[in-house]
């Protein structure tokens, strides 16, 4: 069934969009990532104009994250206090990120920078997570208890705060810094930032994996809602028909994904996320290295 999208001004198959939404929704629920880093390239691929894809994707992430976070609230796996600290950092970072983005746009080559950003971050994060999870799985097989919560310099910082749900008593500075850093990257790369946030929470803040997913989703809702409003009012690129089709599939997928996620071991969850991140990274790197079949591309004059 073909459906015409009023803002994107293209006609696409409705079931294809429902399916894409569902698939990304499952991943979103399982790993606590918004799925933007997967969905946005997929939307480009089926012919949605990039500007519309990025803006609409933000709106869809709000829906799937909201659906996912409710499931996590029932399970009491959302650290609201940590989420709020990260969110404050995230909003500051996003504002800074927009400034950086506009500066780079003025210099040209912003597309390339975004892609390089993806390749580097996805590659490093995916690689580290993969190694770590593999070791963790080996250790549990050998019967060793996982070693966690080592005391390091992070615990020496001032302004300590108790995060009961995460079982942490640490300074608010590291989560704020993580929030700002992720906010900057999210604004530049045009995604929610879950795929950076989740590993940062696990490895830098030492939060338990089960709490990380819900807390990340909680934070993503606000960041993407902010982005949606920004795109809708300045660029007029949010396509509500496209968003509805994606989010119907997405919210259902997120519910299924959350249930799958609960049944799996933390290490397995991490290694799967790592593999997915590495796959996307590989695809992007491949596109940069291999000669494209069409060397020319069209763009709206004045934009990028």
């Amino acid at each position, binding site marked *: *069934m*073909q*459906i*015409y999208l*009023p*803002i994107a*001004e*293209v*006609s696409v198959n409705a079931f294809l969009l429902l399916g894409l939404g569902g698939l990304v929704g499952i991943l979103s629920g399982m790993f606590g990532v918004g799925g933007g880093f997967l969905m946005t390239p997929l939307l480009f691929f089926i*012919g949605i104009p990039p500007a519309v894809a990025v803006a609409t994707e933000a*709106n*869809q992430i*709000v*829906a*799937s*994250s*909201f*659906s*996912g976070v*409710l*499931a996590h609230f*029932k399970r009491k796996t959302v650290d609201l206090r940590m989420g709020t600290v990260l969110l404050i950092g995230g909003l500051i970072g996003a504002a800074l990120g927009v400034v950086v983005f506009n500066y780079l746009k003025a210099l*040209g*080559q912003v*597309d*390339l920078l975004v892609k390089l950003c993806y390749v580097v971050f996805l590659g490093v994060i995916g690689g580290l997570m993969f190694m770590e999870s593999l070791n963790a799985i080996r250790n549990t097989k050998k019967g060793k208890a996982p070693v966690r919560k080592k005391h390091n310099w992070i615990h020496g910082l001032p302004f300590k705060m108790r995060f009961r749900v995460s079982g942490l008593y640490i300074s608010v500075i590291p989560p704020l810094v993580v929030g700002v850093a992720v906010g900057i990257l999210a604004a530049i790369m045009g995604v929610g930032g879950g795929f950076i946030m989740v590993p940062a929470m696990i490895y830098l803040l030492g939060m338990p994996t089960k709490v990380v997913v819900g807390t990340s989703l909680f934070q993503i809702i606000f960041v993407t*809602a902010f982005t*949606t*409003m920004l*795109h*809708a*009012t300045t660029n*007029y690129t*949010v396509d*509500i*028909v496209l*968003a*509805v089709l994606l*989010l*119907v599939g997405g*919210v*259902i997928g*997120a*519910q299924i994904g959350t249930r799958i996620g609960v049944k799996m071991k933390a290490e397995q969850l991490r290694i799967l996320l790592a593999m997915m991140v590495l796959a996307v990274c590989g695809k992007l790197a491949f*596109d*940069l*290295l*291999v*000669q*494209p079949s*069409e*060397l*020319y*591309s*069209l*763009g*709206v*004059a*004045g*934009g990028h």
Partner: protein
Amino acid sequence: MRALLLALSLLISSPAGAEEIVLGLSSDQVSINTNFDGSEILIFGAVKREEPAPDEPSMQVIVTVAGPSEPVTVRRKEKRFGIWVNVDSVEVDRAPSFYAISTSTLLGLSLSETEDQRHNVSIQRAIRSVGAPMNITNSETFTQALIRIKSASDQYQLNEGTVSVDEQTLFRTAIELPAALTEGEYETRIFLTRGGRVVSKYETSIYVRKVGLERWLFTLSRENAFLYGLMSLAIAIAAGWGASAVFSVFRR
């Protein structure tokens, strides 16, 4: 004022009613609704004459349909430091969002180069590219790339031999509009040519408009962007909450 004078002078200088086009359209309005999946418009007509048609040279018909024009940036990639990056770009001042040419025989046979220049019929002529930046010497390849990319998605079409002409009087053709269609006024021109020269010309417009829900959403997103954004968020939150509620009912 200048445009009006120009139009008047054109009217006077045109060959006074030797051969005149009488046109019919299957519809002069294309409505884009939610399940719009491309459309076909039928363009047909007849040639009105005072005296019998000359046998030689034979009459040919060219039909063009052009969508609203806009400036387009064409970028070129090159390998730098091992990766493919955009190295240079040319801004095409005006390129129609859609352009279709249907002819009764090969375009080169029905229209001479000078007449093409005068009336901007061929795809190359329909695109207007004035100044390429100084550092670009081969701006021609950029417009060629534009045509190649647009042709691949049926946005630009050259349909030679698709206009059927009967008895040197009646002609008809069908133009396929793709699903990805932009709103606006589609300028439609019909040329009668003999021996490569345009002997008569007719212009009309086909209006492509969004209707119903499509129209409403599009207008809202432009005129009331804040409300539209809030509505998008509300739908997103409601859908997320709804799915969660439905699933928790299932679990019990």
